[in-house]
């Protein structure tokens, strides 16, 4: 199946707030995901404050930023699991938050998502996990379904683990199975939530390679949410760095790597202190130690 769009990454030119503008798809095709004026808050905390962002078709787009900046939230907003307070999110020309339940589910059959934990169904084998979306949405003869599942597992190198249960898999294997499940219905796009976090170098290398290969060979569009800088910049065609509810900078990996913004530099260089402080806001240490602070502690 697939989305039929050739893999023609169209890296945008570098932009920075306050003049940040959405990148232009130089390939001429409309962006696969178009976000305008996105505002989302959790309680009093503003997670996104007027974010504009485009995800190009056929490209690997990385959404990067420090922990707690709302990267996973952004994926949930794109997939319609969360509803923004303001702004719009269009996926393949459809405004996600104006769709009815049936239409949203139909759209989701064309989206794959790799969860940070893998989110495999614990009582099903590896084979049954990958077969799950096919059984739910495609009425296939058992022999064809078996072949399809084995091909997906072969693509992630785990055909031999088809009969194992998720509890018998390592973290890296679980993510690869989850990836096979995410691409089971040949979606037009795959969203990866922190795919490299907590992986050993070998597993990380395998996952990086898989993401790259699946995107190019499968004609997919990929959105990677990550704070693993070298791995993500190594495979991304376009990068957005978000923090404090806004897009700090966007562009090709080279353009973002050269960005002088101190907030971007601190994140990319991994400096412990900078615009994002090492210390959580607190009263002066002496005040706390000498007992003038909060007496409840």
């Amino acid at each position, binding site marked *: 199946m697939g989305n039929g769009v050739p893999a023609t990454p169209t890296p945008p030119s570098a932009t920075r707030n306050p003049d940040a503008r959405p990148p232009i798809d130089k390939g001429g095709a409309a962006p696969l995901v178009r976000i305008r004026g996105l505002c989302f808050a959790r309680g009093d905390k503003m997670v996104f404050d007027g974010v504009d962002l485009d995800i190009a078709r056929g490209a690997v787009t990385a959404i990067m930023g420090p922990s707690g900046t709302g990267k996973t939230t952004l994926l949930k907003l794109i997939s319609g699991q969360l509803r923004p307070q303001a702004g719009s999110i269009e996926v393949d020309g459809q405004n996600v938050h104006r769709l009815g339940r049936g239409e949203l*589910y139909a759209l*989701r059959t064309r989206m794959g998502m790799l969860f940070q934990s893998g*989110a495999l169904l*614990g009582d099903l084998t590896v084979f049954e996990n990958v077969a*799950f979306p096919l059984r739910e949405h495609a009425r296939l003869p058992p022999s064809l379904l078996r072949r399809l599942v084995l091909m997906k597992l072969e693509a992630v190198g785990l055909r031999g683990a088809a009969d194992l249960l998720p509890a018998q898999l390592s973290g890296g294997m679980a993510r690869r199975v*989850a990836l096979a499940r995410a691409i089971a219905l040949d979606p037009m796009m795959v969203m990866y939530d922190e795919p490299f976090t907590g992986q050993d170098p070998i597993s990380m290398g395998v996952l990086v390679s898989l993401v790259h290969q699946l995107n190019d060979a499968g004609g997919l569009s990929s959105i990677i949410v990550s704070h693993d800088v070298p791995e993500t910049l190594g495979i991304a065609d376009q990068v957005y760095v978000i923090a404090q509810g806004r897009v700090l900078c966007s562009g090709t990996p080279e353009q973002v790597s050269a960005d002088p913004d101190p907030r971007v530099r601190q994140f990319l260089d991994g400096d412990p202190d900078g615009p994002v402080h090492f210390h959580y806001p607190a009263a002066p240490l002496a005040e706390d130690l000498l007992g003038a602070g909060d007496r409840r502690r």
Partner: protein
Amino acid sequence: MITEALARLGRSGLAALAGIGRAHLLLAGIVAGVPALLPRPRLLLAQLYNIGVLSVLIIAVSGLFVGMVLGLQGYYVLNQFGAEESLGVMVAASLVRELGPVVTALLVAGRAGSALTAEIGLMKATEQLSALEMMAVDPVRRVLTPRFFGGWISMPLLAAMFSALGVLGGWFVGVGLLGVDDGAFWSQMKAKLDFREDLVNGVIKSLVFGVVVSWIALFQGYDAVPTSAGVSRATTRSVVHSALAVLGLDFILTALMFGD
């Protein structure tokens, strides 16, 4: 100070009302999943096994011992009035009308209800429910509906087993150990127990308790804070709320069914 207390009370009240609203919406979603369940009976059968069959041992053993205790206590009371032949009807009526449905519901809430809550809560915490959503599969219909009806159908069957084994336990103690006449034990039971008044009302109670216990267990899991502490609290709440609901409803149902 008073304003703060009032505000806290108001917030608690609103949160409780919101919870009740969410629980009812969830129940509506579960029931709406019936048409999707009918062509896939295997999903239901799996839950009948998990909730019903796996509860058989605790129900059978508990029923037997409760019946034995009833036989023992009943004999000592009835013997004082020379009415020990009525032991069979006393044991059977106590079990079919009250103890069978109520104790079965409490045991199912403790064994299967807590397991359901923990399972759904962990599925939420490990993003399995979100993954289903992302695969365009409604987790309420796919996961919760079969479990709800598995619990609902299992409850009266387990209660019947509890009562039957309880009667056998009472017979063993009364007839086997204490010398009550075997014929009197069974004949009085047959003569005095009314099908509609006793058996049907007992089954109705079990069906109501089945709805309540399954609903509370699934709602607590689905509404759990997706952390280890959150799932732990939800599991505790599931058992406590189920027990209180069963005991409260039992009083109301008894008053409606057997009151003049």
